[in-house]
Structure formats: structure tokens, C-alpha cells
């Protein structure tokens, strides 16, 4: 229960405006970055984006890292979450790399 009090300060401590700015900029960056992509790169790009949302693994590490060692429910699910998150990250980047490797071979 260490974190309970931290969460009570959540809404007051969290600067909703800062986050809104990040949100807004990231949305437009995402759109900007994707436009003008040649069709041949759609699959690698989708796969690369797939790997990037594996960043969710950080959430699972945080949840796992601050779990009481005797909370077996949280430990089990947290463990599973870290495994799945790692699968997403590692698998995603390796698959993308393999796809792009094939383009590279010929000039």
C-alpha cells in the first residue's frame, strides 16, 4: 500500500497541460511522419510502429518493480506482462529488421 497516497496526489501533481501539449504534438508528428510513405514500406513501417508501442513494457516494469514481494497475484500478472511486453519489443524490432534486410541486399 505504499503507493496509495501517491495516487491521491495524482490529479493535483500531474500537470494536465504539459501532457496535453505532448499529446497534441505527438498526434501531429505521427501524422506528419507517416504521410508520403511509399507503398513498399507500408509493411515494414507498420511492423516498426508495432515494435514501438512495445514501450508499454515500461509500465509493466514499473508495476512489477513496486509490487510487494508477497503479493503473488500482482507478481504473477506483472511477470506475465513483462514477458509479453518484451515479446512485443524484441519480436517487433527483429521482424522489422529482417524485412528491411531483404531490401538492402540488392542495389
Amino acid at each position, binding site marked *: 500500500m505504499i503507493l496509495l497516497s*501517491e495516487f491521491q496526489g495524482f490529479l493535483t501533481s500531474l500537470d494536465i497541460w504539459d501532457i496535453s501539449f505532448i499529446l497534441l504534438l505527438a498526434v501531429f508528428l505521427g501524422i506528419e511522419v507517416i504521410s508520403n510513405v511509399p507503398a513498399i514500406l507500408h509493411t515494414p513501417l507498420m511492423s516498426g510502429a508495432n*515494435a514501438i508501442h*512495445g514501450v508499454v513494457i515500461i509500465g*509493466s*516494469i514499473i508495476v512489477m518493480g513496486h509490487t510487494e514481494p508477497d503479493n503473488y497475484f500482482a507478481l504473477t500478472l506483472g511477470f506475465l506482462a*513483462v514477458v509479453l511486453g518484451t515479446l512485443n519489443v524484441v519480436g517487433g524490432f527483429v521482424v522489422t529488421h529482417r*524485412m528491411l534486410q531483404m531490401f538492402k541486399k540488392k542495389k
Partner: protein
Amino acid sequence: MANSDILKICYLLGSLSFIVGLKMLSRPDSAKRGNLFAALGMTVSIAGTILFHENVNHATGEVSRIGNLLFIFGAIAIGTLTGYLSAMRVKMTAMPQMVSLFNGMGGACAALISLVEMNTHHPQEFGLRLIIFLGLMIGTVSFAGSMIAFGKLEEKIKDYGSKVQQVINNLLVFAILGLIIYISQGDSTTDSLIWVVFGASAVYGILFVMPIGGADMPVVISLLNSFTGIAAALGGFMYDNQVMLTGGILVGSAGTILTILMCKAMNRSLWNVVSGAFSASGGSGKSTEGLSISEINVTDAAILCAYSQRVTIVPGYGLAVAQAQHTCHEFEKVLESKGVEVTYAVHPVAGRMPGHMNVLLAEADVPYPKLKEMDEVNPHLPNTDVVIVIGANDVVNPAAETDPGSPIYGMPIIKANTAKNVIVMKRSMGKGYAGIENELFYDKKTRMLFGDAKASLEKLIAELKSV
């Protein structure tokens, strides 16, 4: 420097690498470096979290670092090994399924975070509860949907849908959202309802993808991809974690745009895809009864090609299924040695994903300049002696231009029917993924060469060498 500042720098570098990485991924010459760059940023962010993440207890001022390190490293080791091996072993033809599977893992990860967070800390604030429940819903939908998409691409799950189910789907979304808003307002006494949200979201994820036709799976995977991005961003909200926020939102918005681009390539609206209209109306289209097809044997086909000036190959998923991309490249080389000019006409949605066919042909070392995009190749087709359609169907169906009743009407196609001769290599007269008849096969200029694409191409090569 305080740990929290070092962590912020790690996250800044991570966010930067995602943005620059995605940008580099969208250009052919820099794509590979972009992927590695993003992977490096991810590593920095993960390592930074493990080393420097701190929770400060507002009441006591007590600082807690990341614990349970043994479990965390164990989980990362298992995930890395499994992820690496499965990604290295997957066949290039099965790539779309693999992406779907990894996407599902990310969604499940987001859902589990919400489950643990709610069950361990029982937060009270409306905003935080809302974020946790929404993260759970979106993550679960993405996970369940991706698994169904995976099953469909593996051809283990059939399309199933009806008008009634469509109504149920829509009701279910509103029911889940209503429940989420209701329990977000409550205190921890309603926390156990989280399992209802979890179960209902899983059911919705399944029902959402079930009616969507196999041909639309890439669009669905791309959509679910952006869902997982949003789920990751909600996690960023929850922990006030900048790198999760930027990474998640970036993928969420980029994924949505990519989804829309894919729909545009097929001249469909996103709603049209999601409501499963494709498979439902599949049976319509012009009847081809009374029309007859004409076959060609390997020898004649070889002679026809050998005495052509210009040959264009239209590859489709059938080529990929037969693993014939290498044989196809050899066929092309033999033809070139006879002085025939050979190009490939690649439809944007050829294969099972946009750009999938380019990946497959690249795997077979087909030179990049030989791959022509649809708009580039269409004007030259009337001057092309032979168009060889290998395992493609819907992308050369003239009904897309001539028959307003056809479900693929309006989809841009490779106008194979404008060439002087057409040879269609097919296993049988089976229909394409869209399940509709193709007039091209009955065209006077068209000759059918039945059989496995790889076997047919091998025979053609042997014949060509003796011509």
C-alpha cells in the same frame, strides 16, 4: 544529478529515437537504420526505468526503487529469447500473422498493467480510474482482436458475421463504456467489476474481428496496432511517463493514418471495412455462366514469352503461398537473357499486407528498379506483349472498373486486360480472396495455365532454355 533527472534524459532520448526512427522508416534508404535507432532508444528507456525509476511516497517522503529485479530480468530473458527465435524463424509469407501476434502481446501487456494496478492500489480518483479501465478495455480488445486476426490469416478461423451481430457489437461497446464511466465514479467497492470490463472487452475484440473478411485483415491489424498504441499512451498517462506517452500516441496517430491509407488503396471507407461489408456482399457481381476459358500449355506459353518484347509479371499471394518468388526471379532472368524486357507490376495491396509483395520479391533478390507501382505500369500495358498473372486475382479484376454492383467496384487495379496477351497462372478456377468471379479469365486474350505456381514456373524455365 538526481535519478529522476537522469531518467527524464533517458526518456527524452527514447522519445527522440521513436520520432526520428519512424521518420527514417518511411524512407527506403534510411529505413533499416531507423529501425535500429528506435530499438536503441527503446533499450535506453527500458534500462533507464530499471536503473533510475523512483516512486516517492507523498505522505512519508520515502523513496522506493524498482524491486523484484530477479523476476523482471527473468521475464525479460524469457521474452527476448522467445521473441527473437520466433521472429527469426517465421517465414516471410507468414509475416502479417507475426505482426498481429506481437501486437496482441502488447495489448495484453497493457491490459495486465491495468488489472494489477487496480487490484493492488485501488485508486479512488475518477480520472485515474477512467484511464486504468480504458487502458484495460483497449488493450484487451487489441489482444483478443489480434488473436482472431492471427487465426484468420493462418486460415484456422472462418469469417462469421450477420446483421444481428453488428447490432450486438455496437451495443456491447456502449455497454462497456457506460460501465467504465459508472465504476470510475465509484470508490473501490466496485473494483471487482473490472473483471466484467475485462471479459466483455475480450468478447468484443473477438466479435469485432470475426465478421471482417480475410482480405481486410491488414487493415484490421493496422487498426489494432494503433489501438495498442493508445493503450500504451494511457499507461503513460497513468504513470505520468513521457516516453510511454510519446511512443504510444505516435503509434496511435501514425497507425490510424496508415490504416486510412490502406483503405484508400482499396477505395473503401474504414467503416465499410469494419462493418464487414466485404464478406457479406461477396456473392454478388456479374455472372460468368456461359463464358468459356481457354487453356495454354507450357510449351506454347514459353514460346509466347520468348518471342515477346515486353513482359510484365503481376505477382499475387498465390506466388507467395507456392514459395515461388525465387523461381519467378529465375524465370525473369532467363527471359532477360533472351532479350525480353521484364518488369513486375506490384499492386499496393498485393499479398496479405500493403507492401508485402515487395518484401517477398526483395527476399528473392529481384532488383529494385524492376518493381513498378500500379500507376507507373498501367499506361505501358497496352504496349506490353504478355502480362503474366501469377497467383493474383482481385487486383486484376476488371469488374472493379466496369461493374458498379461488384463489391470491389472502385478499387484501383492493374489493367492486365489492356495488354496484348494475358497468361494467368492459377491452381484452379477458385475465386480470389474477395470471393468474386473474375471476367479477365474469360477474356479472349487470356489463356489459363493451371497448376502450382512454382511447378509451372520451373517447367516454363526448362522450356524457355530449349526454345
